[in-house]
């Protein structure tokens, strides 16, 4: 009955590698987000998709590429990983009908770049 799920939960990799994080929501929401939480716990939005279309793209290096194959999935691919990419990445989703609604967050993926 998981609402927003992410895989993997932990990801340890070497600098220069390419990795992907997957997110799925079974809430029927049509808007999904990626957030980055840095070592000081600060949360910052990276991307947002609405019905598979990119609607928010913050000043994120183009090594980061989100992909939404359908409304229930939003994946994050990261090329040429750098030490500074080490963080916890959270996926979230929100319905956009019926007025303003809160976001529901996944459990996070802790990425460690060595």
């Amino acid at each position, binding site marked *: 009955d998981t609402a927003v799920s992410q895989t993997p939960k932990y990801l340890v990799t070497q600098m220069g590698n390419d990795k992907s994080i997957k997110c799925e929501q079974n809430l029927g929401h049509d*808007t999904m987000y990626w957030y980055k939480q840095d070592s000081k*716990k*600060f949360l910052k939005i990276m991307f947002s998709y609405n019905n598979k279309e990119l609607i*928010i793209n913050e000043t994120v290096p183009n090594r980061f590429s989100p992909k939404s194959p359908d409304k229930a999935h939003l994946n994050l691919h990261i090329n040429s990983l750098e030490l500074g990419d080490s963080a916890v990445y959270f996926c979230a989703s929100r319905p956009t009908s019926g007025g*303003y*609604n*809160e*976001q529901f*967050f*996944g459990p996070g993926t802790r990425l460690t770049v060595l």
Partner: protein
Amino acid sequence: AQSVTQPDIHITVSEGASLELRCNYSYGATPYLFWYVQSPGQGLQLLLKYFSGDTLVQGIKGFEAEFKRSQSSFNLRKPSVHWSDAAEYFCAVGSGRGSTLGRLYFGRGTQLTVWP
């Protein structure tokens, strides 16, 4: 520009004591306000939200928050803290307009430690 300030980085209280976590926001229109809690190694869970109406909102786990427009504040309170409340607490303001609809701006969080 939208922003959220949580002045207290770390708060320590004794179990059973009352709690107030401060949150001030900057937003040009009617704000949508949230408090989320993050337990160690976990995702964010919504405690409560304010969209409109009664300025005192009740949330889960016995928490409440009061929206004060004149002070641009949305402080979180709990009358009696339990050890399980130890966590990181985030205040957030949501954008309600146009292309930024639904975007959340988070404060830097307040870490709550509870002494037995």
